[in-house]
């Protein structure tokens, strides 16, 4: 399937869902509840674990999980730009200000600026944490069917929130296509050659404005359809979603054990794993 995204570093939800719907790997056949449970443990582990080497191991396991789903690694590395940007924007100054041994020092306008080992380690740690979760999260969404995600959302979220989530998820693909169509039309008419920041800004504002107007028109049509079909405050779930298998429960138990050990090591016995 061709990707249709206007930013190479942002995952395209239609592309993500395509893999979830068509893939046939062992990860695809894993129970969705198990995958969501494992995602929770990955998030909790990267929050609790402090040692960079253990975090690298978690990242490696997340990439192995992603690869086991027969998902494109090259695309994943392109998508790493987004978390990289967020981590860098938060921690870029720490590589200069974190107390530690100087790795590199220069004089800028009479002021000594140094990159410290602790600063670099901190930034690397934050980056590995973010990438581990992003990789696992994308693997989960790229190996789980749309219907199963909607069932899980409707079970775990409060009614109103679940309804908003389910409707927006359902129409995100159309909205995204619509914005892409308008951008295509603009570019085919040389719109991207427009000179001047103000003109450019107004043009994009027009595109986004149209997207909002169309969305509201669609919302009004959907509301009428919902009422005509007897909407009573919830969307009925018709497809069953089985409980995790014995293997799934074993993986969840492994996640609980790992988290408990990591927490014990961090708060009670720092020598347990050497961090």
């Amino acid at each position, binding site marked *: 399937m061709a990707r249709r995204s*206007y*930013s190479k570093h*942002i*995952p*395209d*939800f239609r592309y993500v869902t395509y893999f979830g719907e068509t893939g046939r790997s062992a990860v695809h056949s894993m129970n969705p509840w198990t995958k969501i449970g494992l995602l929770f443990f990955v*998030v909790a582990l*990267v*929050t609790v674990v402090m040692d960079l080497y253990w975090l690298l191991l978690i990242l490696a396991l997340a990439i192995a999980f992603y690869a086991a789903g027969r998902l494109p690694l090259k695309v994943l590395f392109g*998508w790493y730009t*987004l*978390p990289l*940007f967020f*981590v860098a*924007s*938060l921690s870029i*100054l*720490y590589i200069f*200000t*974190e*107390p530690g041994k100087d790795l590199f020092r220069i004089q800028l306008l009479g002021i000594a600026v140094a990159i410290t080992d*602790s600063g670099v*380690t*901190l930034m690397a*740690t*934050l980056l590995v*944490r*973010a990438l581990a*979760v*992003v990789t696992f*999260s*994308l693997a989960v969404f790229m190996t789980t069917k749309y219907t199963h995600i909607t069932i899980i959302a409707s079970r775990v979220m409060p009614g*109103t*929130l679940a309804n*908003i*989530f389910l*409707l*927006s998820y359902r*129409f995100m693909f*159309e909205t*995204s296509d619509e*914005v892409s169509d308008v*951008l295509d039309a603009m570019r085919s008419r040389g719109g991207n050659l427009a000179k001047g*920041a103000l003109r*450019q*800004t107004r043009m*994009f504002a*027009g*595109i986004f*404005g149209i*997207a909002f*107007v169309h*969305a*509201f028109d*669609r*919302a009004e049509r*959907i*509301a009428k359809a*919902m009422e005509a079909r007897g909407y009573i*405050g919830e969307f009925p779930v018709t497809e069953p979603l089985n409980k995790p298998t014995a293997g799934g429960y074993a993986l969840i138990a492994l996640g609980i054990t790992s988290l408990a050990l990591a927490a014990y090591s961090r708060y009670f016995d720092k020598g347990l794993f050497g961090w």
Partner: protein
Amino acid sequence: MAHIHLEDGAFSPLWLLTWSAIAAILIAIALLANRRKEIPPRKIAIAAMCASVGFAVFMVEVPTPVGPVHMNFTPLIGILAGPGMGSLVALVINIFGAAIGHGGWGMVGPNSIVNIVEVVIGYYTFRLFKTKSRTGDFWSGFSATTIALTISAFLVVLIVSISEIQGSNLTRGETLNNMLILAVANVVAAVVEGIVTGYIVSFLGRVRPDLLLAEAASPPDKRISLVTSGGAPDG
């Protein structure tokens, strides 16, 4: 990006739980505010469409003199959907964002606090400019967005400075100094998003004026009644 999104592992478990609990309280307030009266399907559909457009638009890079930026439009969502529904929309967008690395899963709570503040301030500031001082659509939209995003940029500074980045040996004061530089960059991006939002609001004011402050104006319920008004059916 007009505001920063925090990735997983930036905060210690204690602070993560604290901010998540505060976010849960804000979401509970938004849910309760929406539960006071029966929610018409139109309101749910509008909130859902705001979430899907907000997320779709985020994927588009807007070229600016200071480099490409992505818009989130949380203040605009507040203006269009109202503070209650807008807060829920902000959470939904954060959940979608977390799925693709635009903010972490564990950070949905802290990120939602920032976004909810943007939604609420965006809505009330716009309402103030529009109804009290009778400012035009562009300037109302621009001012509401710029003020909301500027405040949220400093809120991020506050949240990160209080929590501190886990693994860092800097004091809270030193963390604050680091984060203030980031806040200045975010304020510049806030002005860019303010201009874009101003144009969108003036565009909406021309083609669909009923959408602006529709929440505050409490438009009549457009639900279709299957029973004909004016008495019992014939026969």
